[in-house]
């Protein structure tokens, strides 16, 4: 055990001196929050535009009542339309234009559907969202008029509403937020847990083989399991560090993310997230150790990591596209279980202590098995000497 500690300290020092790699890791973990922030600001910008939009209307004189009704809607300003609505929208001078045809009044008076034309470009996010809002407004105007017409004929408007659908949503809004907008948090954290130790594992094991220093290392009367244990511990410390750093980044992103996701996990919640993610970081580092032991060189190890990079993505897609039903068993599958548990914590739901403990133990047990396997592999003649 003492020798494992010696290996651990050496690999940690060696890894910290590998500046380029260290910086690459830091960059890779900060990119995601930056993307999130930019996306958040963008989404908020659209919300703002929707809340305070202009609606250019062509042919206002054809339907004064409608124009007046529109002008009364909050956050909507009716403006004069450009000369040629189509080209104005195409050239992005306007997001959309409502055109009222000359025969509007005539058809309206005859009780025939009066056509309205909305010129919009749905390939533009703002244009699509604005067109949606205007369409909904015009439909409710139509319903208002319809109701008035029925009342004037002595018919209750209720007659044309034979059923009324009321949705009782059991999926709490916090949970919905957690499962959609915040799905990135477990994904991002698990990516950190998964890749945090990669650099050290591949350099300390595959790199050791590649440089040929493994031969001298194995002459020191130290059993291979201690060497592997020390190298794994160094990788795991990095993975745990990056995971905690990831949690820190998430806290910052949530605090400063515009467009309030109305979710603010407590300190206890984040503590729970750390308790869930740390055993997984240890398990993932053990995977890196095994792959690095197989690899003949640092580059080969990196290639293998590429093959397993999709592992943390599986739960993300599985949850996003509803492939799995969350049940008791799901908590105990490494990576998937942690992903779901973190989501639950984010959704403000309780995670049973025994569930958390058992999932952690399973991850640690799997890590131990992987390390045992790697120890045997590390001293295999074909591994030590084939270069």
């Amino acid at each position: 055990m003492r020798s494992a500690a010696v290996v651990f300290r050496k690999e940690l020092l060696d890894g910290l001196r590998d500046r380029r790699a260290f910086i690459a890791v830091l960059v890779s973990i900060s990119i995601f929050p930056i993307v999130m922030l930019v996306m958040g600001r963008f989404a908020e910008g659209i919300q703002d535009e929707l809340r305070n939009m202009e609606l250019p209307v062509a042919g206002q004189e054809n339907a004064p009542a409608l124009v007046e009704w529109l002008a009364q809607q909050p956050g909507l300003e009716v403006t004069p339309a450009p000369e040629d609505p189509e080209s104005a929208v195409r050239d992005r001078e306007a997001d959309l234009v409502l055109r009222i045809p000359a025969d509007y009044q005539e058809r309206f008076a005859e009780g025939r559907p009066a056509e309205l034309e909305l010129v919009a470009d749905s390939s533009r996010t703002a244009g699509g969202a604005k067109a949606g809002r205007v369409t909904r407004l015009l439909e409710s105007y139509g319903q208002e008029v319809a109701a008035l017409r029925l009342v004037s004929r002595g018919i209750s408007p209720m007659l044309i509403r034979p059923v009324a659908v009321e949705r009782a949503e059991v999926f709490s809004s916090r949970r919905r937020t957690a499962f959609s907008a915040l799905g990135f948090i477990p994904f991002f954290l698990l990516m950190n847990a998964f890749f945090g130790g990669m650099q050290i594992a591949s350099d300390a094991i595959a790199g050791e083989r590649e440089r040929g220093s493994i031969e001298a290392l194995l002459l020191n009367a130290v059993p291979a399991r201690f060497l592997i244990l020390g190298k794994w511990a160094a990788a795991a410390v990095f993975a745990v560090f990056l995971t905690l750093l990831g949690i820190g980044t998430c806290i910052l992103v949530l605090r400063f993310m515009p467009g309030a996701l109305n979710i603010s996990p407590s300190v206890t919640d984040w503590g729970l997230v750390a308790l869930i993610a740390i055993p997984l970081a240890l398990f993932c580092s053990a995977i890196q150790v095994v792959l690095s032991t197989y690899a003949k060189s640092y580059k080969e190890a990196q290639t293998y990591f590429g093959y397993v990079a999709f592992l943390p993505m599986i739960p993300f897609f599985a949850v996003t596209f509803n492939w799995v039903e969350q049940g008791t068993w799901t908590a105990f599958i490494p990576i998937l279980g942690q992903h779901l548990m973190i989501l639950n914590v984010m959704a403000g739901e309780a995670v049973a202590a025994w569930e958390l403990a058992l999932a952690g133990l399973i991850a640690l047990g799997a890590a131990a098995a992987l390390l045992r396997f790697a120890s045997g592999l590390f001293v295999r003649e074909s591994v030590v000497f084939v270069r």
Partner: protein
Amino acid sequence: MILVSGLRKTFGEVVAVGDVSFAAEDGAITGLLGPNGAGKSTTLRMLYGLMAPEAGEVAVDGVDVQQDTMAAQERIGALPDTHALYPRLTGRENIRYFARLRGIPADVTEGRLDEFVRLLEMADFVDRRAKGYSHGERSRVLLARALIHEPRNVLLDEPTNGLDVMSTRRMRDLIRELRDRGCAVLFSSHIMQEVSLLCDHIVIVAAGRVVAAGSPGAIREAAGCEDLEDAFVRLTGPAEEPA
């Protein structure tokens, strides 16, 4: 004292070591001499327990290497042929790392380190990162690292390979000093002159077999040659270099 008997190792069809037996006595320098590809490195790897022989055994101070690899390795200090250091550690840190792995107390390590720095004239570079070392600087650090636990049995795989004259001399002096302290020194080489200069006992291997063994004089006699180099050429056969 290293006793080797009937070692055999094959890689697929290739017989790397066919039948090798010899002894490296305490207080003597034994040279394992042979052309490239004769099986010297493979033999040494079996001696320090990194390769398992298919037949035969190795005993270091009476400890069977196969049965108790760790105990045998504790009695061995070895310089494998890969000659690699950790580039991001300084020379001193490289040596210290192995000393700690061996469980040597820190104060003892530091004392020995200073001794090696003086003996091998490493003061100029030992606190620099190993990345920029010259061949000679690297060899000196490697040697100090292999000897930091003061092993009784020293195995050196082509220790002077690629060294300049000064470094080679320093290496020879150190090897002699180890012998004088009573160590069993075994080193491999493909250079006749070096072996004849240093060795008390020579084991000539060719194509995985011992073709001659004895003192330099005895070998000359056995081959019927006045010159040791002629003896070497005659014994190892013509152009035996499968490399």
